[in-house]
């Protein structure tokens, strides 16, 4: 038996006590027997035996102590005592547990998100060896960029693989969406194009079926198969093992199912789980023409590169290695379409390597900083809650002052008393922590669904891992110490004699109230900081939502038609699109319709360099953004035409090339003069002549992809003058009446025209709202936190002021008896509140100023040190605080002096 036996004995103390009684009882009984045998009378013998034995209870206690872990026994006793205390004060317990639950829950939820997107390792073998190829600053990219993460061309991957020494193996992947449906509404699966070594390099083995064969990635792969994710297999194929070898229909082509990945393998991007993975070569299979084969295009940036570091290679060493390799790789992969100046910039590019043990994630780029800021804010909320609890505990401790003094006087040691007081705090923190963890479980899921849009689902693994557990436990322990330790130390410090005398010991009172004041001051400061943040983020969101997009987004639907499946000739396709546009336009639920190549706020972009003609003074060779639209687009989008005309049926393939530009374009290239009638040139790829356009119209500025962006120069070209007929056709539709009416109208027309046409709908206003989801998140969460902290600190101030009024009852009673007016009593009490308030506000302001620059990049339309915001926050805090002080002050003013003085 050793320490664990002693610990175990604590938990079976009743049995232990019984055995002890048996053992000691046996001793006494034997002793009696002997005495009786020796001639002592029976009644005498018993007394004598017990006398010889000594103090039975002490013997028992001392013997018992030998078999038990004393500290644990004491701790359990303390916890039981604490529990009893809490049961006696259910109101206090409820407030404490609730505020701790909210505080710890919010912290844990935010931490869970950070954990999921930043800290947790990939579900791969030895994830710490994984590293991603990244671009050094000022990286030049031109061409066809289609990736969520830092991407490279296949040629670069291939050359890099041949030259590098740092990695034992390198893999490449690109993300895509595969349509699963055969017509009508498109249904998408998250797809990955992967190099054939993908799973092997990651050390992931399929749970069912097999991996891709180790083959050359650019081979002809008409027999390519697909590996499914576990969740997709469960969802779409009901987890049927017979699915292996069956076909899956992706983007109009059947792929045999090769295998199923393990359940925990979501891919390499936290936030985006994959459904289906196909080999890189499948990109060529699915491309409809030569131009779409990204594997063979040296200007198609689509592959994210991950390597497994060789033993002994650090990320830094690999980074230096790849930087040195860069020139050779660029020389061998220079895209032929680049003009000399582009080529020069391309050759200057430098590579580097970053750790990828936690994967690569676009979600992380967008949300890592906001989440850390939110974590800091929830931390402040928790601190405010702790300050509040500390205050409540202080008040309780002073109520128990005498009891504690008595205990000390009869010999209780101070550490033991502190332990007992802390046990109660530990209980509160423990219960708060457990409930907080439960709350976090739901909160983090709500947050994820908040971030997920209608078209982009975010999938994060939010399971409970040791990091989250440690975080929550640490938080609970820390809060316990924060709010419990100071009151416990204070409560046991009072000299027993002074406390028992029952008077109001002047020195101790001042000291204790000093601590309470400090707590209130910090609460005021915390809530000011949080309120400033809440107002900053709230106003940013309002500014964003109030920005002029140049578009009347209400009632506008974007219908994205995919015409790849019917396999039509371009001319036939063009006629079909025209027909579709006309039919939709005549639907009663539609008031206007137009075609557009890149719907606004879709995330797609197209840009190039523009040279205005015939004007040497104007800027030349600057960047502009482009789009193609059909006649009636600006009318449909309610974008005002400022000069010239809209496109019309005259602007067809045979007519001269024309363009409509926006104000920013005119400002940028024509010194804000009316550009109608002027011409400009757009730089083309190497070996092709530049195109020249004549401007026929000027429109109001519109946002291109984001609410945050400055107005960009945009030139619109007629859809009809496009030399190719794309396979996708996007319509903007202004609905009359219900959106659903217009949507079903489009659906009907589509299926009548060709049942194999695919369509996806987006509501433009929703799309725009979705583009500010991060700002919305910051605004609503910080608003909530600000409110919570404000509430807590108001309660805190109220508590302290009420307590002080009670303490000063006699003094106030005397003043009233001597003729002080109610007003002057209110002033007396409020003066105290105002003093605390001002110190708190000053501190809060200083900290706000120091911290606000971290939020600068998340703000829109105002500076982090925006005076109005700070003033408003301060006024709000001051207002509520004064209100909180006014209630006890008025109570003091109404005090009946006779009653107050009778106490003395």
């Amino acid at each position, binding site marked *: 038996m050793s320490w664990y036996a002693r610990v175990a004995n604590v938990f079976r103390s009743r049995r232990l006590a019984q055995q002890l009684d*048996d053992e000691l009882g*046996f001793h006494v009984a034997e002793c009696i027997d002997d005495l009786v045998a020796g001639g002592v009378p029976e009644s005498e013998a018993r007394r004598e035996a017990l006398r010889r034995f000594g103090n039975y209870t002490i013997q028992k206690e001392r013997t018992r102590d030998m078999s038990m872990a004393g500290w644990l026994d004491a701790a359990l006793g303390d916890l039981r005592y604490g529990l009893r205390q809490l049961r006696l004060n259910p109101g206090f317990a409820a407030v404490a547990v609730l505020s701790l639950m909210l505080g710890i829950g919010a912290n844990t939820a935010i931490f869970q998100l950070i954990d999921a997107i930043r800290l947790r390792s990939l579900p791969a073998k030895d994830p710490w060896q994984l590293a991603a190829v990244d671009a050094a600053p000022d990286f030049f990219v031109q061409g066809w960029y289609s990736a969520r993460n830092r991407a490279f061309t296949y040629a670069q991957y291939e050359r890099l693989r041949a030259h590098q020494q740092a990695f034992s193996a390198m893999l490449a992947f690109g993300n895509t969406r595969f349509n699963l449906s055969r017509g009508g509404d498109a249904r998408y699966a998250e797809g990955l194009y992967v190099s054939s070594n993908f799973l092997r390099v990651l050390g992931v083995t399929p749970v069912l079926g097999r991996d891709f064969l180790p083959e050359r990635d650019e081979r002809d792969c008409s027999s390519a198969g697909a590996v499914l994710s576990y969740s997709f297999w469960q969802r779409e194929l009901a987890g049927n093992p017979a699915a292996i070898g069956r076909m899956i229909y992706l983007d109009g082509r059947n792929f045999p199912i090769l295998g199923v990945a393990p359940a925990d393998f979501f891919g390499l991007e936290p936030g985006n789980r994959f459904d289906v993975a196909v080999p890189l070569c499948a990109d060529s299979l699915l491309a409809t023409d030569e131009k779409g084969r990204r594997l063979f295009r040296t200007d198609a940036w689509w592959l994210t590169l991950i390597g497994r570091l060789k033993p002994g290679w650090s990320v830094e060493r690999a980074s230096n290695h790849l930087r040195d390799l860069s020139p050779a790789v660029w020389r061998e992969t220079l895209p032929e379409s680049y003009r000399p100046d582009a080529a020069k910039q391309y050759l200057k590019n430098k590579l580097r390597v970053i750790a990828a043990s936690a994967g690569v994630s676009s979600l992380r780029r967008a949300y890592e900083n906001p989440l850390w800021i939110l974590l800091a804010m929830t931390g402040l909320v928790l601190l405010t809650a702790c300050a509040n609890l500390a205050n409540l505990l202080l008040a309780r401790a002073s109520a128990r002052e005498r009891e504690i003094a008595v205990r000390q006087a009869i010999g209780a040691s101070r550490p033991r008393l502190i332990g007992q007081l802390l046990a109660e705090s530990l209980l509160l923190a423990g219960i708060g922590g457990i409930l907080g963890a439960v709350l976090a479980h739901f909160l983090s899921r709500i947050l994820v669904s908040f971030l997920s849009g209608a078209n982009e689902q975010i999938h994060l693994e939010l399971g409970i891992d040791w990091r989250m557990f440690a975080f929550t436990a640490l938080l609970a322990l820390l809060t316990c110490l924060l709010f419990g330790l100071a009151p416990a130390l204070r409560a046991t410090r009072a000299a027993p004699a002074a406390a028992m005398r029952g008077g109001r010991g002047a020195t101790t009172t001042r000291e204790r109230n000093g601590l309470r004041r400090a707590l209130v001051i910090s609460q005021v400061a915390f809530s000011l900081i949080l309120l400033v943040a809440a107002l900053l983020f709230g106003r940013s969101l309002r500014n964003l939502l109030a920005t002029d997009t140049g578009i009347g987004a209400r009632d506008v639907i974007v219908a994205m038609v995919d015409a790849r499946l019917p396999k039509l000739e371009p001319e036939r396709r063009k006629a079909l699109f025209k027909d579709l546009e006309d039919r939709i336009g005549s639907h009663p639920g539609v008031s206007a319709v137009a075609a557009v190549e890149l719907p606004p706020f879709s995330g797609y972009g197209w840009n190039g360099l523009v040279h205005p003609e015939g004007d040497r003074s104007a800027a030349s060779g600057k960047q502009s953004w482009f789009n193609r639209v059909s006649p009636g687009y600006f009318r449909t989008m309610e974008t005002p035409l400022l000069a010239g005309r809209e496109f019309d049926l005259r602007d067809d393939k045979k007519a001269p090339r024309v363009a409509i530009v926006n104000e920013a374009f005119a400002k940028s290239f024509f010194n804000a003069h009316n550009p109608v009638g002027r011409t400009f040139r757009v730089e083309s790829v190497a070996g092709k002549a530049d195109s020249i356009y004549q401007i026929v119209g000027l429109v109001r500025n519109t946002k291109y992809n984001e609410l945050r962006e400055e107005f960009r120069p945009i030139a619109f070209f007629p859809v009809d003058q496009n030399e190719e007929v794309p396979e996708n056709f996007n319509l903007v539709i202004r609905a009359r009446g219900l959106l659903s009416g217009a949507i079903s109208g489009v659906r009907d027309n589509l299926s009548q025209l060709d049942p194999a046409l695919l369509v996806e709908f987006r509501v433009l206003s929703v799309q725009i709202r979705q583009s500010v989801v991060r700002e919305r998140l910051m605004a609503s969460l910080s608003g909530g936190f600000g409110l919570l902290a404000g509430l807590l600190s108001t309660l805190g101030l109220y508590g302290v002021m009420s307590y002080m009024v009670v303490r000063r009852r006699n003094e106030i009673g005397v003043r009233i008896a001597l003729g002080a007016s109610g007003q002057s009593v209110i002033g007396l009490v409020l003066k105290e509140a105002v003093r605390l308030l001002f110190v708190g506000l000053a501190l809060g302001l200083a900290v706000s100023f120091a911290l606000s620059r971290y939020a600068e990049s998340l703000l829109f339309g105002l500076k982090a040190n925006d005076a109005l915001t700070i003033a408003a926050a301060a006024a709000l805090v001051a207002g509520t605080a004064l209100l909180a002080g006014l209630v006890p002050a008025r109570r003091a003013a109404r005090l009946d002096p006779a009653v107050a003085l009778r106490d003395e």
Partner: protein
Amino acid sequence: MDKRNDILQGTLTLLVLRALEARGPLHGYALCGHIQSVSSDLLRVEEGSLYPALHRMEQEGWLASTWRLTEKGRRAKFYEITPRGRSQLAAEKESWARLTRGVARVLRYC
């Protein structure tokens, strides 16, 4: 108030271990009697020290205990020396010998 020093502090362990080594399993009361009679009534074990000591030694793993019936039909806790107890006994004997030698020399030469 406290009469624990009938037996020199620290020697109780030695006596108990030695008694159990010599006599095999014994209960607390018998142990008291045994030590008293073997020492010709020179040593008297205080119950107040014996039971805490027995329990401590059991925790240390020097003793093992079982509940058995005595001849009189009473349930008693019998203690028995363990192998670890034997090596402890050897160590205690050694240190006792050193102590007595030292004390004897001091008495002789000072």
